[in-house]
């Protein structure tokens, strides 16, 4: 079998391989260890039982889904309370309910999001209470 335009084809393959593997070369030797998180805030320390609106493992895995549901519930259905699985009722509010306890947004939200490369757009509109000019 004869390969026509061998030079061009091989050069193309090399360029492709370099580009496709680029991110790996770029990130080589830059292993980042998971952030060491301090999640306690004064508000949380005062709680008798340290429990979020739902159990921590569920929140860890599904907070983004829960927040999306909350968002649609308030904006589109006008429903502003959330009944947790244990029957307790919470006011749906990102800056009110969530940040009331988790007042350390930088520790609590940003460090994991940065580590995971997640870029939630919440704060483009919602305002972190302490950051108000």
């Amino acid at each position: 079998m004869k390969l026509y335009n061998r030079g061009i084809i091989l050069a193309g393959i090399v360029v492709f391989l370099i580009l496709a593997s680029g991110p790996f070369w770029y990130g080589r030797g830059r292993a980042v260890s998971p952030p060491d998180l301090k999640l306690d805030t004064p508000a949380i320390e005062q709680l008798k039982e340290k429990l979020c609106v739902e159990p921590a493992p569920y929140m860890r895995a599904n907070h983004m889904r829960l927040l999306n549901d909350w968002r649609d519930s308030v904006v589109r259905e006008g429903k502003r309370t959330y009944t947790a699985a244990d029957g307790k009722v919470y006011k749906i509010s990102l800056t009110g309910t969530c940040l009331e306890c988790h007042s350390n947004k930088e520790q609590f939200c940003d460090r994991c999001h940065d580590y995971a490369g997640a870029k939630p757009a919440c704060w483009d509109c919602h305002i972190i209470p302490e950051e108000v000019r």
Partner: protein
Amino acid sequence: MAPTRREFLKIAGVSAAGLVLPPLASVFAGAQAGMPAAGGVAPTGSDPRSALTAKRWGMVIDTRKCRSGCTDCIDACHIAHNVPNFGNPKDEIRWIGTEKMAHVFPAETHPRIPESIKSLPIPVFCNHCENPPCVRVCPTQATFQRADGIVMMDYHRCIGCRFCMAACPYGSRSMNFRDPRPFIPKIDPAFPTRTKGVVEKCNFCEERLAQGILPACVIACSEKALSFGDLEDPGSDVRRVLDGKFSLRRRQELGTGPQIYYIL
């Protein structure tokens, strides 16, 4: 597929115990000044206990009470909703504005109307139409109509195509042509800002109604020119005003059914 909340909890077998987050009583202690005395805004049982609800929200504006040069309602609204001030008409964003009668009621204006009426500053809002063209044209349902008649914007969903701005026959909508945050005089953390690239407008203060407070513009008006309430309730503020006076709606002939009524 991720497990739903209930499935997860079944597996985890989590028990319900002790109240954790701020008790509800404090959360809903938000009903401050502004609880209306008028009917039609009776608290209901479902959502937050003190929320104001209605079958169809509406507003009456007695423009005869408006003082020329007064911007109290505009200022209150724009502060409450973090509306930016770009200082130029091109990028302008406004939820409330004032216009001359000839511009608001072109079909009702004629040369023999006294100058005192023609020069009235007429406040213009989103009309929260019964049959809103903006909702019809929106390709993502980012703007939609609630059961109580409020025409809402979902700023999380808007793609900024501006079809709604072309469809609105009242010029009630504004586009964030630039990042609004640097142009907000003083940010109120209680209400989100918007991002560049989305369309925005008056929301009849639905966030305040949910807390049992009347719209910011209604409370801000020292002349009580604005009345707000349930148009379906014969005992409401708005109905009482409308029953006694001749009123107009903007561009009635278009069939949009505005829910803002004017007394001139």
